[in-house]
């Protein structure tokens, strides 16, 4: 294909391909899952292989919001504000069981799943999830990005 000097593709597919391999992430790290996030991001598991090695500490420059760790009711408006500040297209990963469902924190303080506040694209369960699970979740998100309608 390349030997002929040109490639054919659909524009939408090309954009999806570009987007899924250049995910700027915003790590919203609140709890112990942060350690596992660091393990997945650092050289041993090397999240950069998937084009997601660039954390931006401003939501305005980020594509993916990683919600890593327990979110309590006091924190919820902050998380919502961070999400609202992100530019389209944007995605959310719920990292760890606390963000998925509240986990074992079924009490007065804890949000029972961040999907009650913001939309979530990929849920990564585990307490904490293994780096392999995290990378699997990231690949699921990439698949989703590739196959979704691209707005530009």
């Amino acid at each position: 294909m390349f030997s002929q000097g040109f490639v054919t593709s659909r524009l939408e597919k090309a954009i999806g391909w570009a987007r899924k391999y250049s995910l700027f992430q915003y790590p919203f790290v609140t709890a112990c899952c942060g350690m596992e996030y660091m393990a997945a991001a650092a050289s041993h598991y090397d999240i950069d292989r998937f084009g997601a090695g660039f954390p931006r500490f401003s939501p305005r420059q980020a594509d993916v919001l990683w919600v890593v760790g327990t979110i309590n009711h006091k924190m919820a408006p902050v998380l919502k504000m961070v999400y609202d500040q992100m530019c389209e297209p944007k995605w959310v990963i719920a990292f760890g069981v606390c963000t998925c469902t509240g986990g074992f924190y079924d009490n007065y303080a804890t949000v029972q799943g961040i999907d009650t506040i913001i939309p979530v694209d990929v849920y990564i369960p585990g307490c904490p999830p293994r780096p392999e699970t995290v990378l699997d979740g990231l690949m699921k998100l990439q698949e989703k990005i590739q196959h979704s309608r691209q707005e530009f």
Partner: protein
Amino acid sequence: MAEDSLTLTKLREKFAGHIVETHSFRGDDTASIQPAAIVPVATFLKVDPELDYNYLMDLTAVDCLRLGKPYRFEVVYHFFSLAKKHRVRVKLPVEARNPEVNSISSLWAGADWYEREVWDMFGIKFRGHPNLKRILMYEEFEGHPLRKDYPIRKRQPLIGPGSPSQPQPK
């Protein structure tokens, strides 16, 4: 019970009228005192050269609602002496109605946030505290979550389902 710990002996000598009970279990000294006496007792523990309790290790409370006690709350202080390496636990029985004790934040600055936490979680007020407001929960939160009569299923979200802007669909 035979007690020969220096702290309890001195406390019983000096505050005989205010001591409710003392015991020493396997070397752990505990003194229950009347709430009104906490500031003089704490001051004595701190300034007495033989006792020299210069470190407030912990300040917390217990809700004794279903423990069959004649009082509702216990405010618990743990003091430690860094120089003498001894420690003592002081307990104050507090009534259910308008629970209030005197603040010791003028003696240990560290008591400031502990007392705010006890206020936040148990609703016990501290007289003379410079800034007694919630420390862990948000200002909109109603009630005190570690009280045993706080409904275990009660949720007070700020946003999302069940919040004031989005009442829970039943």
